[in-house]
């Protein structure tokens, strides 16, 4: 229904919108170039530090987990912060992604004779296996997200929470007992899946983190993302405005599950063992805490709180007993005193920051300008 009539409606183009004053701007390609350079620099320097020994094996291991939990938090943020639903089975998708990727890589490397040492050396075949395995893990999780999303998203709030919690429990029980059903060793049951080759490294984990963040960002800053946000803000109005709410709710849910699966795939390679007990309700709550604390709907918030909440417990091992109870208190206090989380819905844009600096606008000066603008409005 291409309709050309609207191109010349409503008279004059707004004057004030584009050019209030001559302002230096950063073109979109420039923004992308700057961001790409920084990401590549981060990856290269990090990789050099790991191979050079500036980052110890243990620190590297913790860093990989930071990356994994960043993806977990950002992916849950899609369903919670952007879509406004509260799924409580995020760990279930993580476990599906982890098991499917690990099983895939174990089986295929056995079949084609790739050894663990090859993964450590990083041969091209292993690189390919890694990419296919991680995507496969994500797709398996996405598929299960679709299966549970279709019935769950017909329900609201609490029902969705409980149905996803139940689904994650079903996944846990299946992983635990599937071997007796299929008749051969698939998941390893309660003792866990062992012999997973160490297919992750600082470099490939954070490359996946960067790609995931990029894709989620571009999704949200497009018509698809706006449809998702519209549903969060007012579902009935969204529907009346032509947003296919069923489709977009399912879509957001499936994307959220996909990235949880990707994180799970990385987790399996990083930890080297998969056991159903690791993906219980508690794990889902841990990730929820990251999202809530960072600010529902803020990608930067999720990234920061996932980083802090992964490193902090490692740094403060002595307080391990109090960690969970501290999570609980943080969750309650955040909801009562700062429900928007630490970052609110603020999303960081390096390009914007540079743009402000180019115009000599410092953060404090900008606030003043905003206030003046508000006063005028």
């Amino acid at each position: 229904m291409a309709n050309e009539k609207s191109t010349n409606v409503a008279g004059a183009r707004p004057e004030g919108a584009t050019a209030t004053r001559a302002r230096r701007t950063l073109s979109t390609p420039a923004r992308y170039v700057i961001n790409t350079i920084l990401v590549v620099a981060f990856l290269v320097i990090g990789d050099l530090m790991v191979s050079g020994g500036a980052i110890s094996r243990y620190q590297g291991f913790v860093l990989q987990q930071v990356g994994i939990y960043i993806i977990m938090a950002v992916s849950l943020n899609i369903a919670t912060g952007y879509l406004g639903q509260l799924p409580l089975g995020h760990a279930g998708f993580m476990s599906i992604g982890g098991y499917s990727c690990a099983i895939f890589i174990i089986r295929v490397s056995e079949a084609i004779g790739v050894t663990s040492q090859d993964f450590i050396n990083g041969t091209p075949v292993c690189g390919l296996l890694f990419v296919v395995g991680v995507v496969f893990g994500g797709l398996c999780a996405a598929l299960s997200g679709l299966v549970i999303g279709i019935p769950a998203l017909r329900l609201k709030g609490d029902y969705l929470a409980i149905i996803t919690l139940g689904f994650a429990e079903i996944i846990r029980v299946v992983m635990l007992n599937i071997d007796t059903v299929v008749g051969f060793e698939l998941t390893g049951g309660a003792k866990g899946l062992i012999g997973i080759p160490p297919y992750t490294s600082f470099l490939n984990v954070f490359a996946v983190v960067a790609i995931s963040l990029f894709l989620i960002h571009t999704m949200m800053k497009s018509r698809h993302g706006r449809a998702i946000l519209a549903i969060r803000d007012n579902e009935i109005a969204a529907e009346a405005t032509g947003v296919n709410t069923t489709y977009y709710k399912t879509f957001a849910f499936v994307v959220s599950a996909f990235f949880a699966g990707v994180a799970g795939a990385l987790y399996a390679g990083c930890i080297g063992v998969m056991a159903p007990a690791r993906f219980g309700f508690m794990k889902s709550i841990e990730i929820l805490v990251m999202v809530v604390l960072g600010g529902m709907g803020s990608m930067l918030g999720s990234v920061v709180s996932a980083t802090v909440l992964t490193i902090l417990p490692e740094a403060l091992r002595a307080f391990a007993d109090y960690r969970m109870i501290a999570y609980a208190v943080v969750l309650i206090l955040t909801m009562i005193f700062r429900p928007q989380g630490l970052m609110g819905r603020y999303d960081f844009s390096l390009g914007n920051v540079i743009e402000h600096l180019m115009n000599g606008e410092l953060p404090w000066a900008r606030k003043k300008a905003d206030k003046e603008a508000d006063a005028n409005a």
Partner: protein
Amino acid sequence: MPNKHERSVLVQMETPNLIPERDLGQIPVLEAKHLGIDFGGLTAVDDFNIAMGKTEISGLIGPNGAGKTTIFNLLTNVYKPTRGTILVDGYDTAGMSMVQVNKMGIARTFQNIRLFDKMSVVDNILVGFGNQMGTSLATDLLRLPAHWRREREFRDRAMDLLGIFDMQRFANTEAGNLPYGAQRRLEILRALATEPKVLLLDEPAAGMNPNETEELMENIQKIRDEFQIAILLIEHDMGLVMGICEVVGVLDYGRIIAKGTPDQIQNDPQVIEAYLGKQEVI
């Protein structure tokens, strides 16, 4: 596509004076026949009939609880009618979703404003443009040139729409932070962005001062003229209804008790008794 039911052409005989002359001889853009809905045992709307010309502005008035908003909810398939049919451009909308009805060409605003509060003003309108943008997921995810082209094109169109109400300076404001009147106006623009053939306005002037209402009246007519669409509005402000509507229907207890030009309605003894007499509006 749904079955094309009856392509009845509006004829002067059936409803004299009710269809503006310029719209005669064409298919009614919106037609409801014997529409009714019961909630439990209670009949909220009964035997509601309307046939709107392509560029007609009509008003629906009546006391609170008469069923005006219920009619909007029926026309947009929020509720499923117990009786009767709705035809948009001759197509029966029975069984369609709200989204499909919107795609057929019906857009609406809400009595209790329903904006996307936490999105910017321009994004609210862009949601309305979503289906026309039509960029594929891959295009958007990978930021292919088509993504930028469409984004820029529709952002410009959104700014044009904002221009109708002189609201460009609010483009990046969070919709929930807009002043009340501006929120009502934004809802109209968001509805317009879906390129409707019929615009349903539920109390567009509620909470506005006389100046704002005056401006709104002009703008409603301007929108009709520029977009060549039909507008059906619910309003308590009699000045607005009598000032811009070509046809006015009076609803009481779920039934139309009178229908005619503003002049006829103002002089209808039944209306004066049932509605205007009680409320002393004019």
